[in-house]
């Protein structure tokens, strides 16, 4: 059954090639149907692969080049439950995005679908691969497809700038990853992750290993948009076509984190064991990312930019889960990433629906205009509450599991970060929802420091606008149900623990990949959320509602002053997000230097 995984990667690639070859001769609806069918087939295959991984890690050697005596010359897919899970998650989101595209664009060539399918194939390969260089190639493939997709509305102003910043910073990130991989190859003569890990294990880390680890970590953190490598994200996500945003925000950033965790676990954990310094750096980066992203999200009026910064914030939260470098933390992070990704995707679909009907994504300009949308409004409100960790929904469960894992690891303070980040992003989304759909609150807001969204006169938005098309409602509801339901689905919590438990077992992974021993299945324990966790969730939601109320009720002068003060507190963050790519690269280098410096001092012996 391991042969299914390469087929899942091949299907979208072949479909993309067919679409490009056929050019404009295929009618638009046929293209839509083909794309939906291809992503549907991927869903089925990914689900089968995920099912198979429950017995242990699947290894597929291309061309039958199996390893001899622990030396791998061939290229492999090494699929565990985490990788298979993220691949299935990506495929599900693509189907939702393709359905949403149906009525979102009026004029749309097959190139768009082809790029999307290449993007899908790259994500699946990225989740499945067991080879460092293959990881890099899939990384570049998904990056280039994403650059082109962000720049799809190339006649507009924003997409040009967003795509340029995105492409330049991420290409530098990819370059750093490649240099890191090259150094590892120079040291070990291997590219298979398991084999590189075996070669590095047991010996104390020297300068080369630390440099290589820093380069690879920074490269993946650029993609994941960890502060201070995150600047490109808001520029790119706020201007991309909404179906693309949904994918970028829900799964692409998280793939950066996934890749970091995978490479750390399989390659470096043997050499850099006793990882207090790494854990400290990751926790600090996660905390900074979560708080900075949440503050910036709170200061936005451009709805897509708000969701983009919420993405940054949640990447920080997931990074905190990964930073624990143990099974329970990773299991919580995995559950959080998927549940939160579904909810974010649903929010993007809702924003896209509003954009489709009213031609704007500006919170203040949309004031009260969307009150007729009786389904989209409440759905968005519910998703906003879920983002503010309302029990028992999926995002709450994920955050709670990370919290509890952190407490067990002696890092109980992270709950404060979770509460602050959730209150700020939840309040921003609640405020926007109430303003846009219910017309609550004033038309001016001193607490908002972000610039307004431009009015849109897009060719893509010229449909009959009397009602919400079914192809927008269905994905929004389905994604929200998936994300919210993950909190109450029976067995999911235990499954996440089982999936994550073998992830950091480097020796077990190597034995499976290089020597064909069965392994990598089950045995994880995740904590059960108790009444205390429910209370924390409820308090966070109350905090978010309170903050949203403060910003929407400025008729009372004291509250008004509070709103202004909040705005001022956030305003200093804004000039840093200058939109100039040179600044972003400077931040990237400074962040890399700091991380490298800390690792150089603490990790070498």
């Amino acid at each position, binding site marked *: 059954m391991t042969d299914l995984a390469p087929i899942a990667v091949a299907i979208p690639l072949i479909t993309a090639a067919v679409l490009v070859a056929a050019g404009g001769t295929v009618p638009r609806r046929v293209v839509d149907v083909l794309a939906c069918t291809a992503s549907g087939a991927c869903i089925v295959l990914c689900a089968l692969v995920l099912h198979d991984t429950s017995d242990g890690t699947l290894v597929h050697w291309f061309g039958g080049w199996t390893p001899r005596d622990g030396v791998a010359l061939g290229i492999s897919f090494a699929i565990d439950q985490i990788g298979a899970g993220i691949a299935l998650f990506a495929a599900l989101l693509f189907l939702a995005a393709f359905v949403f595209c149906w009525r979102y664009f009026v004029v749309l060539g097959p190139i768009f679908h082809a790029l999307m399918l290449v993007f899908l194939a790259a994500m699946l390969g990225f989740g499945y691969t067991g080879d460092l260089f293959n990881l890099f190639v899939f990384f570049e493939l998904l990056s280039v497809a994403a*650059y082109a997709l962000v720049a799809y509305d190339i006649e507009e102003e924003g997409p*040009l700038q967003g795509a*340029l910043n995105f492409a*330049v910073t991420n*290409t*530098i990130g990819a370059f750093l990853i490649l240099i890191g991989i090259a150094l590892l*190859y120079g040291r070990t003569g291997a590219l298979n992750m398991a084999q590189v890990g075996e070669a590095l294990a047991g010996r104390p880390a020297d300068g080369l290993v630390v440099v290589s680890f820093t380069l690879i970590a920074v490269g993946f953190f650029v993609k994941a948009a960890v502060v201070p490598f995150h600047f490109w994200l808001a*520029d790119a996500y706020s201007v991309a076509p909404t179906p693309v945003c949904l994918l970028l925000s829900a799964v692409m950033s998280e793939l950066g984190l996934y890749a970091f965790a995978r490479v750390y676990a399989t390659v470096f954990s043997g050499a850099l064991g006793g990882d207090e310094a790494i854990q400290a750096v990751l926790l600090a980066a996660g905390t900074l990312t979560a708080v900075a992203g949440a503050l910036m999200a709170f200061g936005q009026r451009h709805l897509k930019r708000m969701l983009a910064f919420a993405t940054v914030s949640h990447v920080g939260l997931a990074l905190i889960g990964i930073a624990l470098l143990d099974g329970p933390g990773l299991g919580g992070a995995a559950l959080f990433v998927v549940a939160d990704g579904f909810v974010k995707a649903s929010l993007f679909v809702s924003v896209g629906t509003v954009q489709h009907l009213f031609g704007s994504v500006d919170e203040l300009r949309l004031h009260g205009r969307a009150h007729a949308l009786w389904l989209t409004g409440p759905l968005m409100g519910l998703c906003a509450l879920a983002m503010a960790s309302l029990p028992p929904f999926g995002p709450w469960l994920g955050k709670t599991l990370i919290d509890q894992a952190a407490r067990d690891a002696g890092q109980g303070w992270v709950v404060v970060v979770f509460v602050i980040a959730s209150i700020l992003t939840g309040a921003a989304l609640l405020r926007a929802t109430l303003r846009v759909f219910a017309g609550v609150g004033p038309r001016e807001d001193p607490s908002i420091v972000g610039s307004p969204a431009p009015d849109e006169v897009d060719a893509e938005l010229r449909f009959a606008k009397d009602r919400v098309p079914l192809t927008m409602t269905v994905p929004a509801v389905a994604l929200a149900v998936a994300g919210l339901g993950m909190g109450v689905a029976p067995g999911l919590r235990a499954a996440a623990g089982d999936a994550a438990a073998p992830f950091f077992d480097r020796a077990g992974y190597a034995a499976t990949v290089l020597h064909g021993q069965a392994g990598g299945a089950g045995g994880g324990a995740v904590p059960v959320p108790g009444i205390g966790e429910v209370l924390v969730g409820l308090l966070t939601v109350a905090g978010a509602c309170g903050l949203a109320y403060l910003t929407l009720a400025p008729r009372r002068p004291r509250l008004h002053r509070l709103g202004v003060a909040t705005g001022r507190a956030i305003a200093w963050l804004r000039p840093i997000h*200058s939109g100039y790519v040179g600044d972003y*690269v400077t931040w990237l280098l400074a962040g890399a230097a700091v991380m490298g410096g800390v690792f150089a001092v603490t990790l070498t012996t």
Partner: protein
Amino acid sequence: MNLLPYLVAVWLMGVGLYGIVTSRDLVHMVICLSVLQSSSYLVLLAIGYVDDAHAPVFADVPLGTRAVDPVVQALTLTDVVVGTTVTALLLALSVQAYKRYGKLDPQELRPERRLQRRD
């Protein structure tokens, strides 16, 4: 091991990054990115280089002859392809920016500047 290729690679990396950070012209920036990427080709090839060795083709030399590492050469080729794709895409965006604004200065593409222009 010869240090020279690594030193050149570090130099190229520094020059490329400096160029990207300070660039006032999109085409210049894209070229700097290419310079930066070319340092990775050098690192890869240097890692696989063996003194007094053949090309890794064993058609007319006996097996076991010293040869340079073919893996890094394949990696370099892949990397060249990837780099070209990114360069082509970025140049296409630059052309579009020039068509729209008549300028290639990335500073002019910043959102604040766009708003200023509109006023």
